[in-house]
């Protein structure tokens, strides 16, 4: 990268509905895809390890965690491939999941088979305590994802595309 001149110049910020705006918009989507990909790998990898290594300690929580991982993977693909409906469904499931499981983990941890709520402990799962073990990213991400989907729908006028 022997510094092509244009790499140092800010991209033009184009207000309004031009194709440049769409590119920039999908650019934000790219960041979302990247964050989703990281979370998908983190959640899936960890739950697979927990299931192999210590499934009997908290089977319900670990299975929910694996399910969450799969949903993050599908959401990542849906966002990357601009499958709006699939993205909307999976991201909505994530939001409901993190709220329900997060609340259950605080109110009735026994229901999930959790003995410890340490967000970094050996039983920590992606949705317990609203995703505290993942720096609350699982709580913030679906909200950002839904906001992004809404902004795309309003701007492009292409209801079938993200």
């Amino acid at each position: 990268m022997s510094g092509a001149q244009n790499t140092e110049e800010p991209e033009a910020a184009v207000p309004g509905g031009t194709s440049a705006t769409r590119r920039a918009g999908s650019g934000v989507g790219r960041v979302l895809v990247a964050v989703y990909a990281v979370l998908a790998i983190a959640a899936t990898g960890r739950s697979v390890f927990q299931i192999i290594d210590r499934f009997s300690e908290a089977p319900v929580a670990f299975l929910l965690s694996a399910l969450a991982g799969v949903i993050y993977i599908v959401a990542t693909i849906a966002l990357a491939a601009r499958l709006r409906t699939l993205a909307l469904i999976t991201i909505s499931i994530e939001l409901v999941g993190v709220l329900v499981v997060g609340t259950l983990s605080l109110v009735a941890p026994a229901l999930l088979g959790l003995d410890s709520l340490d967000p970094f402990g050996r039983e920590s799962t992606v949705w317990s305590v609203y995703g505290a073990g993942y720096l609350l990213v699982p709580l913030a991400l679906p909200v950002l994802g839904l906001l992004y989907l809404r902004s795309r729908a309003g701007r492009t006028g292409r209801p079938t595309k993200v």
Partner: protein
Amino acid sequence: MIFAFTIAQVIVACAAGLLCVSIGLAGRRPNDLTLGGLVLVEVLLLVQLVIALIAPALGNHPRGSIPLFYVYLISALLIPPLAVVWALIERTRWSTVVLGVAAFAIAVMVVRMAQIWAP
């Protein structure tokens, strides 16, 4: 793991993350500085791998799960190259932000690795 080195690594990864996210949001495409930051993060991970491989022989044994430690380390080693390839293919400001996201992910993963090595 060497505690001081691990701390330094987390600080470098956070600094690279902050730098890339700020520069990206300021509208810059990936440049030598931001890509170099990710290369530095990757080099430190490789050093961490060498340390992890040698440390047990010198009496510095992990207390947590060794397979889990290497799952984290190997996954972490893959992230910066993927982010850099992404940045080279898609030369927009958002790729600079993605570089930052990757660097922050490494910081978190290194903290987790430290927790696994000495819980």
